[in-house]
Structures are given as structure tokens and as C-alpha cells.
């Protein structure tokens, strides 16, 4: 199995180079950002925004905005760590199925290897992000280490969910249809998110477009607090989706053969 994971990582070689560039850039920019937010121009802008206060912004709003910027810094390295669709495309192009079907590994192990590649890469991405979060938390009080950790767990979980669903669709549709698999994955994630949050979306819709009441601060910042504090819910969901995706993909792969 290790051999297949190594092969998958070899397929993502170019992407890993990108990952290291993004990581380096993120580290530099995020440190510059937190330093600037504490002592430099960003702190100054924040103060001016509060003084002028054209948009009726509170200090919490400004801190939350800074939090979102920090979140993006946290998400970027994990998002760049590996898109499994490239492995499927590379395998399909090379006709690697011929090799994978003659090696002494069962379909279940071959599929597990692909899932383990995701976890290996996200593991590396998460570990690096945690180190980055720790450094940033020493430099700023905008966001605590715990909150940043929550963001990392959430983003790693969401991207794991994306990858797990993507693998399922790639197996279901077969080689050469990776683009459709990507579209279906994104669509299914949007639909699932909308269904889960149907009530909140409906309430916001009614408030803004029917009652014309504008944004409610608490509702607006609620997702941010949720991401920072309830990352474990995403993690549990990611585990469940990965297991479900593995089981369903295995059933399909064993029936269809020649897809992994």
C-alpha cells in the first residue's frame, strides 16, 4: 500500500512545489499582517475606521474582519496541499489501472491507499499550519491559538470531505470524467450545506429581502464563531463522510473493476 501512496504523492509533485511556495508566502505575509495589525498601518486603519465610523462598525467587527484574514492564511496551505483529482487524471492518462490491477493488492487496499494519501497530505498540511498558528498566536491577540486551531481543523475537515466525495464520484464515473466528478462534488457539497443550514438561510433571506431589515450582527458573525469554536463538528463529519465514501466507493470499485 505504501508504494501506491508514494506513487500518488509522486503524481502530486508539481502541486507540492506549489504548496511550498504558498506556505512560504503565507508565513511571510501572515507574520507581516499580525505585526502590522499590532504596531503598523493595519492597526492605524482599524483605529481610523472606529473614529470615522461611517459604517457603524464596532471594535468586534474589526477584530472579526482581521480574524477572517487570518483564517484565509490558515486555509491556504491546506487548500494547496493536494487535489486528488490530479492523481485520477494522471492515472487515467498513463493507463496505470493496468499496473494497479496486477499488483498483489486487493481493491480495498488500493482504495484505502488513495484515502491514506489524502490523510497523509492533510496531516502534513495541518501540522505545518498548527506550527504557523502557534507562531502567530505569540505575536498577536487578534486570535488565540485555540481559535486558530479550530479554523485549521475546520478547513482540513472541509477539504477532506471534498476529497472523499471527489474520490467517490471519480470511482463512480470512471477515468476520463474527472471534471464532471469535480462539478458533482462541489454541487453536492453546496446542496448539503444549504439543506443543513436551510433554516438559517431562510431566516437571513426573510430578514434582508422581505423585511428589509439589513444584516444582523450576531447572525452575520455566527458562522465565524462556529468555525473557531466548533471545529470538532466538522472533524466528526469529515470522518463520517470519509468512511461512507470509502464503503460506497469500494462497493462500486469491486463491482465495476478497473476504476482504481
Amino acid at each position, binding site marked *: 500500500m505504501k508504494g501506491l501512496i*508514494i506513487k500518488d504523492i509522486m503524481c502530486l509533485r508539481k502541486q507540492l512545489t506549489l504548496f511550498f511556495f504558498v506556505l512560504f508566502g503565507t508565513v511571510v505575509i501572515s507574520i507581516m499582517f499580525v505585526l502590522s495589525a499590532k504596531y503598523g498601518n493595519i492597526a492605524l486603519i482599524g483605529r481610523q475606521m472606529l473614529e470615522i465610523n461611517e459604517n457603524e462598525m464596532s471594535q468586534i467587527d474589526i477584530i472579526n474582519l482581521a480574524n477572517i484574514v487570518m483564517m484565509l492564511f490558515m486555509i491556504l496551505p491546506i487548500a494547496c496541499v493536494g487535489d486528488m483529482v490530479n492523481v485520477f487524471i494522471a492515472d487515467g492518462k498513463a493507463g496505470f489501472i493496468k499496473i494497479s490491477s496486477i499488483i*498483489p493488492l486487493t481493491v480495498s487496499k488500493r482504495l484505502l491507499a488513495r484515502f491514506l494519501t489524502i490523510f497523509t497530505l492533510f496531516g502534513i498540511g495541518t501540522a505545518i499550519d498548527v506550527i504557523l498558528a502557534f507562531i502567530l498566536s505569540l505575536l498577536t491577540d487578534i486570535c488565540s491559538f485555540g481559535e486558530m486551531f479550530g479554523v485549521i481543523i475546520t478547513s482540513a475537515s472541509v477539504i477532506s470531505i471534498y476529497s472523499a466525495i471527489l474520490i467517490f464520484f471519480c470511482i463512480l464515473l470512471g477515468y476520463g470524467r474527472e471534471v464532471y466528478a469535480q462539478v458533482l462534488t462541489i454541487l453536492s457539497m453546496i446542496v448539503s450545506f444549504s439543506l443543513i443550514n436551510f433554516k438559517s438561510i431562510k431566516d437571513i433571506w426573510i430578514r434582508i429581502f422581505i423585511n428589509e431589515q439589513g444584516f444582523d450582527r450576531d447572525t452575520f458573525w455566527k458562522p465565524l464563531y462556529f468555525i473557531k469554536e466548533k471545529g470538532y463538528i466538522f472533524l466528526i463529519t469529515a470522518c463520517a463522510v470519509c468512511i461512507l465514501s470509502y464503503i460506497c466507493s469500494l462497493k462500486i470499485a469491486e463491482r465495476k473493476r478497473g476504476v482504481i
Partner: protein
Amino acid sequence: MDEVKNVIELKNVTKDYGDFKLDNVSFAVPEGTVCGFIGQNGAGKTTTINLILDVIRRDSGDITLFGEPVNKDTAYLREDIGVVFDEMGFHEFMTGRDINIMMKNIYKNWDEEVFFENLKKFSLPSKKKCGAFSRGMRMKLQIAVALSHNAKLLIMDEPTSGLDPIVRNEIIGIFREFVVEEDHTILLSSHITSDLEKIADEVVFINAGKIVLAGNKDEIMEKHAVLKCRKDEASKVSESLVVYSEIGDYGAEILVNDRHSAEKLYPDMVIENAALEEIMIYYVNRNRSASGTGR
């Protein structure tokens, strides 16, 4: 006398694709032999090989490898099998070194020393991306991989097709070396029958999804012969001997399935050895005319 051990055994194997059916295929490949698997393109050779390797699921029938029934849980049997396809399946960015890293983490018996020796022997650079290899080099790379994990059985699907005679000869030389070991067996699918005449001990001939002939190559070649006679004499030849006859303006050529009987019965007629290719062509033509697709 020791009982002959079959490394591969197929019994009544069927696979129906709708437009093509592998119909009740049964044959065996004894240990220590080179078995030539012949048939025209689309006859069912690759499908049969894929079934043997459990790459595709059979509809019915039994397949055993090394005496064990093949199913989804017997992937470990592939530890002892080296496979070569007509197309290389490695990623083009991979070098010999990359393949070694991957394979040594897949096969328990992977021998990297043997692998690099093989690369050297086949004049394959280990640092060059295999996407830049010629077709011959790609085949040799696959063979190098197949020979580097102490495989006892080599299964090859058209390994020599599209190669020039020099490389083909080299590859056949490699196979000869492989079968020097008594427990080494080869199933070699090809439609280049001249290669098989050089190396095969056994021959399995498949046509339109059905096994037409299976057995010892020398016996098959000894039994069959091409009988040449005048057009009017063709009808005198016993039907039980005739596989297929081709009657032209200048005479008739008949493939007979019992050379000795034909020689006794028709001493005045010219009887010539039949090459594997001729045997294949006559059987295919017989099938075509029987199914009404012949010319």
C-alpha cells in the same frame, strides 16, 4: 511419474459483453512450459488474460492459479506473477528509480538489485523518464519489472507486437532465460505466430471467444498439414480430415487435421508442413464460413 501440475486452469469460463462472448473457455497451462495463446485481434485473448488476473469479473466458470481458485481475496497470488501488457502503464514522468521505489513498497519479494541489473542488461537508463522511451524500451521496462520480484509465472499480452525483429528476438531471448528454471511458466499471448513457434511448448488457439485448439505445439504442428491437389481432387478428401479448404483457379489447398492418415489415404497428393500461422488462418476461415461471415 510425477503428476503434471497446472499453474493456470480455466474451466468453462464465460464472460458475456453482449456484442462479444467468451464462451465456455477451458484450458490449462502446465508448470515449466511456455504456452502460446494465439488468435486474431478481438478473438478474446486479452479478455481471457484479464479474467485470469481477476481484472474483470467472470460470469461463470472456475479459474485457478497455482492450484488456488481466483477471487477478489486472492490478490496475494499476484506476488508470483509478472505481467506485461502491450502498453506500458507507468506514468511518463517516472524514472526507473521511481518505479523501483514504488515497487519495492508493493511487492514483498521485490529485488532492487535484480531490477537495476535488468535495466542495465536491457540498456535502459534508470534516471531517464520512461515517457521518453521508445516502444521497445517500454516493453523491456515492463519485462524488467515483471522479472524483478521472483515471479514464477509470466503472463504477457502481445509483448512483441509493434516491435522490430531485432528487439523481438531480444525479448524472446529474455523469455528463454526465464524458463530455464523448472518451475517458471509463461503464458504468452500473441498473434505473431513465428515468435511462438520459436519458444512455445504448448499452444492455445482462441477464435471468436471459443477455444479452437489446445495442446502441445509440436503435436499440433505434426498433426496438421496442408494438402495440395487439383480442384477436382478436393472433393475426394475425406470430410473428417478437412479443417478447411481453399479452392482457387489453379488448385486446392486443404488443411487436414491428421497428417499421417492423409499421407496414407492420398499418397499422390502433395502434403506440406503447416505453420502455426497457416493453421490459425484456416481455422479462422472455417469459422467465418460456418457463421456466414466468410468471403
